[in-house]
């Protein structure tokens, strides 16, 4: 099972959801789909039509920048991090 760490600003949208999740899936897309089964609506917050990751959402698999198609190893650690973006 991969370990997924969600950002606090995302958790605020889903009261009661924990930051850390152990999730099955062999790609970033599969992991997000699995998480969406546990946290309905979570996929919509991270993925836009395409499908692709939203422009200001970064996903790192074992420290490397990833896309939805990126493979995920059984013991991978996945960080979901909002981009440093925006202005005033």
């Amino acid at each position, binding site marked *: 099972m991969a370990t997924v760490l969600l950002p606090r600003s995302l958790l605020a949208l889903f009261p009661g959801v924990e930051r850390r999740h152990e999730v099955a899936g062999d790609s970033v897309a599969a992991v997000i789909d699995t998480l969406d089964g546990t946290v309905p609506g979570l996929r*919509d917050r991270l993925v836009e039509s395409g499908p692709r990751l939203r422009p200001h959402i970064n996903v790192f698999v074992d420290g490397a920048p990833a896309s939805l198609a990126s493979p995920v190893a059984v013991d991978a650690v996945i960080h979901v991090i*909002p981009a440093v973006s925006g202005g005033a």
Partner: protein
Amino acid sequence: MTRVLLLVGTKKGAFILESDADRRNWSSRGPLCEGWPIHDLIVEPGSGALLAAGGSPWYGPAVWRSEDVGATWTHSSAGLTYGEAAEPIKTVWSLSATPDGGLFAGVEPAGLFRSDDRGATWRHVDGLTNHPTRPTWGPGAGGLILHTIVPHPTNAARTWVGISAVGVFETRDAGATWEPRNVGVRAEFNPENRYPVTGQCVHKFAMAAGDPERLYQRNHCGVYRSDDGSETWQEITGNLPTDFGFSLVAHPRDPNTCWLIPLSVPEAGRYMPDGRAAVWRTHDRGASWIRADEGLPTHDAFLSVLREAMARDTLDPVGITFGTSTGQLWHSSDEGVSWQMITDTLPEIWAVESVVLDG
């Protein structure tokens, strides 16, 4: 006891201002909706739930819902998509309740969605997107946005929508087909054809109280009234100081009265003309306009009021509120004659809605 709420959508979240029927002292709560940019707020008839429309630069579009007057919120964007191969939806710009218990949401890029489960899920009203003129639609300065939805009060088959730089459309078959409704409306930015079928830059429109065939329209190029359900429009800009502005609200009981805030033309800054704040109203269907500035700053007031940032309540006398793009919220409890500032420290205000709760 009567509670009066002002639901305020800003660039940095929703806020709720609350007062009693006197509307003199206000308390404030917020930011709500996790600080998301909020373009519109409404109250769902029947349930009294608050709904907020917006979109996060990080997390995308959603409609928020609160069933405890804003204390807690949930959100959903299930179904708010044109499909995997199409352009993503950036944000939700407008909400409206239908007379048969549904909800409409207008989005960017321009399109219409409907929910029949109180906003839990949405489905695309593709009859509008499939209109033959769709390939010609282009964005205005604010984007390609469906910002105004006016359902007929009793006939659920009829609805009007407004899209910036595209115009007004009406459906009479519950969204299956749509007709452009822009006859008589100028498009000065289109010199080869000032009166095209579509391409008019509607900024806001509202239905006259008790007369669904009468509509008032605030356009980029003037102010208009229709007396035939939008099939034709006649200009009523009259003695207004400019023909530009964004906001317009109609009286809740008098079909001859509405309020608006003229702004200097886009090339001159889009603020209140000469830096003198004023709200204008008509009591005769736009035949003449009356300027009011009592309580408002009369010099160095370079204020702008965006399309959704003006609202009226249903009390007698009617309360009028407007919010500025620099975070000031102004209120009149005497039908727009005199004004007091409620706050000047909110973020950029995009939307205001007035709600009266009894009991």
